[in-house]
């Protein structure tokens, strides 16, 4: 039988909820008011590391309109998923400037805000752990009792009397032998600062905690309602069924709204006011200062190479500055164990990924989940080695890229259907028209004009980082008129999950898109389970679940239709709203007649309402071996490459990106319009990390730039002049167990954008940058140092 033509998959449908969003009808938690609602404001620690000696809130309590004041004494519950290292509110000590030490609930935000200023806290300052080096010295401990903390055993490895929340390792082959086989050994060090997620809707939660029972109702701007339910229930010591988490429209997440954030605190605040609903909304400054970031990171690479350019061995240290807490951070660190050396075949490797505590705002998941950081290092390192070996950077990558039959650094075998990084690099090279390094004469001539062009490229890879047993589910129900409602546990916060899932359902049921509705406002009491809306996993996992649910619904219809039409279900097919005989197509029954069960003319009924479900559980994954990191953590890999053509102003250091070309082995594009949106958005977010963004701290580890004025994101004037996206849709390398061959793409466009820009800057200037961001100031200073002050040049 020939391949069926797909009717809905691959079509660029408008997103389902677009009309509500362009008319101002879409309701976000920011906009919500619940009857009887009170407002909360929080007091932040001015110190990065201090004991809390006393808190006097008597004046605050007296203010008219104040309903309750809560401190760490009352809000003393622990919270955490991977590494339970945090209290809901600071207890005996504060570990970063910005940590919440007290909260006020009042009739209005204004009163709560005023009351917060009346709280007097006496602190005893402690020595501060400013950075990775101080943390590794361990003279000062951020967490004294680290070794006693609850954590996922065998997966994370906290070290007693240290600041290391987890030390994860990869050991493959024999690096001693590998380095002996090398003709050259190259060493480099790279770093990135902490970066903010900056969802346009700041974190906000409304909680209503029934004083007469354990029941808690939450409305939250969250990515993962089921993770909120699990972690909140665990913190509060109640059954999960007592927690109902409702997520309406969410104004952006980027990983910053994964896991649990304000929800446990606001639940405690609601308890303190006898169960009245309480709303806590972060100001933009609080969003920067209180809530977690992408971790800063330092990477050190030592690589053995043959003179022909084949990697023989690598020794790598990835050290993550996770700030004061590392609950999610340890899992970001873990990804390096299987992905921290890029999409290359490395026969001998020893890799250490250490998630480290310091006294700064803490870290969590962020789009790319560690990969932008590790790939900044790997892909710059590859380029620098190519320079030193005098090999074209394209050729050096081609010599080392993973191919079918190779194994990854964690021992995963690459199949043809794992994807094709070579195809991605070739597509980018061709589109960029890369012909090799610029000559010295050309560079010199350009320098004299004040503007120099440069091209560069970089590879990327990522698989979802998630527990090996992650699962998702979907429920589907047909209305009397043949319309289908789909219930999912994932949140569509703009990535387009609900539109994609509607396309999958419509494809399998062979109905028009308008007949499928994905039910919005995920509510854990009603919607089926999904682990977390993170990791670019939902098109793959959710798509498989919805596909199974739809196929099950078709099968149910066939079973009833087979009785009525007096034939075996095998002889039936479906389409155009009918179940019909494959040959005698007039023998048919409409979906409408089957939707609530079939009624014969004499009144007899058979079947029943059409409700189906589908589940998908990650298959064949295992935890990395604690000593060697060997295992199978990657459910579905997406490979890609970026190429950049840029121009740098030699005087001002300003970088103008003329073109970015990006290729991804996505397997199958389900909705090009939505995929393009992920790519454009991811690339520009990557440009932000490359050129603009980053946290700055003063000598007291106080955050210096918690506002847009000095910590902004790219605007419309910062975008590349041209963006060209290329999608590899080769059936031979598509994801054979994915929906129609599709893989995830949500995070990938952001990864390696800084690397490609850094490599293009070398091509333009012959300067190797090792740190982000590449602001005009940093670039201009480097140019000045390289061309004016350095006499040896």
């Amino acid at each position, binding site marked *: 039988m020939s391949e069926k033509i797909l009717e809905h998959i691959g079509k660029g449908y408008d997103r389902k909820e677009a009309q509500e969003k362009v008319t101002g009808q879409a309701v976000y938690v920011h906009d919500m008011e619940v009857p009887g609602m009170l407002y909360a404001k929080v007091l932040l620690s001015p110190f990065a590391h201090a004991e809390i000696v006393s808190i006097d809130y008597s004046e605050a309590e007296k203010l008219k309109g104040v309903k309750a004041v809560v401190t760490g004494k009352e809000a003393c519950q622990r919270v955490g998923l991977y590494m339970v290292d945090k209290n809901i509110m600071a207890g005996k000590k504060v570990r970063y400037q910005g940590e919440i030490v007290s909260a006020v609930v009042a009739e209005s935000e204004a009163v709560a805000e005023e009351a917060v200023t009346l709280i007097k806290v006496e602190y005893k300052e402690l020595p501060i752990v400013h950075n990775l080096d101080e943390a590794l010295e361990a003279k000062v401990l951020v967490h004294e009792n680290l070794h006693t903390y609850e954590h996922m055993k065998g997966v994370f490895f906290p070290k007693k009397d240290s600041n290391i929340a987890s030390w994860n390792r990869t050991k493959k082959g024999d690096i001693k032998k590998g380095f002996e086989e090398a003709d050259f050994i190259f060493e480099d060090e790279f770093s990135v600062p902490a970066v903010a997620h900056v969802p346009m809707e700041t974190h906000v939660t409304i909680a209503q905690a029934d004083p007469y029972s354990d029941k808690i109702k939450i409305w939250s701007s969250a990515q993962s309602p089921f993770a909120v339910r699990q972690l909140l229930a665990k913190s509060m010591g109640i059954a999960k069924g007592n927690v109902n988490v409702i997520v309406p*429209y969410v104004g952006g997440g980027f990983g910053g709204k994964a896991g649990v954030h304000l929800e446990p605190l606001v639940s405690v605040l609601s308890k303190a006011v006898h169960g009245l609903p309480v709303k806590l909304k972060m100001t*933009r400054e609080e969003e920067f200062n209180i809530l977690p970031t992408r971790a800063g990171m330092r990477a050190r690479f030592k690589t053995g190479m043959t003179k022909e350019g084949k990697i023989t061995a690598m020794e790598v240290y990835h050290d993550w500055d996770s700030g004061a807490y590392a609950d999610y951070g340890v899992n970001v660190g873990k990804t390096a164990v299987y992905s921290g050396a890029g999409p290359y075949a490395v026969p001998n490797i020893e890799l250490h990924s250490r998630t480290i505590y310091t006294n700064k705002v803490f870290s969590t998941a962020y789009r790319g989940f560690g990969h932008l950081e590790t790939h900044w290092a790997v892909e710059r390192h590859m380029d620098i080695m190519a320079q030193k070996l005098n090999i074209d950077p394209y050729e050096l990558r081609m010599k080392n890229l993973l191919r079918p039959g190779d194994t990854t650094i964690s021992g995963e075998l690459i199949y043809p259907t794992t994807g094709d990084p070579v195809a991605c690099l070739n597509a980018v090279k061709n589109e960029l028209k890369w012909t090799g390094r610029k000559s010295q004469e050309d560079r010199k001539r350009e320098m004299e004009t004040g503007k120099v062009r440069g091209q560069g490229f970089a590879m990327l890879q990522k698989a979802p980082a998630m527990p090996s047993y992650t699962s998702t589910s979907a429920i589907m129900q047909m209305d009397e008129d043949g319309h289908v409602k789909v219930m999912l546990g994932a949140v569509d916060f703009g990535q387009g999950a609900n539109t994609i899932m509607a396309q999958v359902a419509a494809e399998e049921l062979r109905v028009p898109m308008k007949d499928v509705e994905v039910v919005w406002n995920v509510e854990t009491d009603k919607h089926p389970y999904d682990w977390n809306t993170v990791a670019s996993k939902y098109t793959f996992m959710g798509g498989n679940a919805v596909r199974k649910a739809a196929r099950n619904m078709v099968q149910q219809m066939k079973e009833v239709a087979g009785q009525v039409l007096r034939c075996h279900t095998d002889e039936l097919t479906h389409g155009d709203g009918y179940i019909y005989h494959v040959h005698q197509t007039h023998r048919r029954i409409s979906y409408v007649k089957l939707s609530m069960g079939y009624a014969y003319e004499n009144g007899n009924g058979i079947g029943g309402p059409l409700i189906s479900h589908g589940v998908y559980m990650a298959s064949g994954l295992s935890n990395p071996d604690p000593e060697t990191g060997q295992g199978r953590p990657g459910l579905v890999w997406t490979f890609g490459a970026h190429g950049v053509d840029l121009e740098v102003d030699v005087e001002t250091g300003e970088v103008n990106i003329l073109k970015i070309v990006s290729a991804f082995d996505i397997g199958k594009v389900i909705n090009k319009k939505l995929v393009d949106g992920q790519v454009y958005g*991811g690339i520009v977010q990557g440009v932000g990390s490359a050129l603009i963004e980053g946290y700055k701290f003063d000598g007291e580890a106080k955050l210096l730039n918690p506002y847009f004025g000095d910590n902004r994101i790219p605007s*419309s004037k910062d*975008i590349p002049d041209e963006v060209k996206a290329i999608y590899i849709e080769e059936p031979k390398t598509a994801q054979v167990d994915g929906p129609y061959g599709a893989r995830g793409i949500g995070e990938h466009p952001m990864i390696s954008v800084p690397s490609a820009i850094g490599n293009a800057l070398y091509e333009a200037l012959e300067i190797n940058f090792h740190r982000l961001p590449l602001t005009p100031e940093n670039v201009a200073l480097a140019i000045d140092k390289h061309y004016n002050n350095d006499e040896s040049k």
Partner: protein
Amino acid sequence: MCSTAKNKGNCVEYTDSGLPKIAIGFEVNGDRFEKHVDPTMTLLQLLHNELKLFGTKEGCGEGECGACSVILNGKAVNSCLVLAAEADDATILTVEGLGQGNELSILQQEFIKYDALQCGFCTPGMLMSARSLLDRQPNPSDEEIKEAIAGNFCRCTGYVPIIEAIRSAATREREALI
């Protein structure tokens, strides 16, 4: 943002400074309103708290992100930086007033067609800045489009589809006039 003035008598309003209220009359999306507002109240708070028009969003409260953009007397402004009292006698257009009757405006239609939105939180402000541009320049260049929305942050889309949508809306609006 909130008042620091003491008002221990009756502090139940979001922005009640205790100062004498100011009477203002204004028009929003074609509807006429008369209100007594606190002198410290912002236009954004007026829209949210008094008129319950939540389409206009607050992204930073400091005039940096543009999520709260509305059109005040023909000009796009950050409503978090304008005092409600300044809206006396003003004509205001918000996202809720963009559609004509029960039909989406051309600009809204093009935002959907080009997928110029993802999470949707910046969208109302982005639409208002675009509307203001097209009102003063029906045939904008790409540079003019980028300039017009430079004060509206979007973290999701990378701006490319937004620029395409505005360009296409300009063309369609000009054609509609012929």
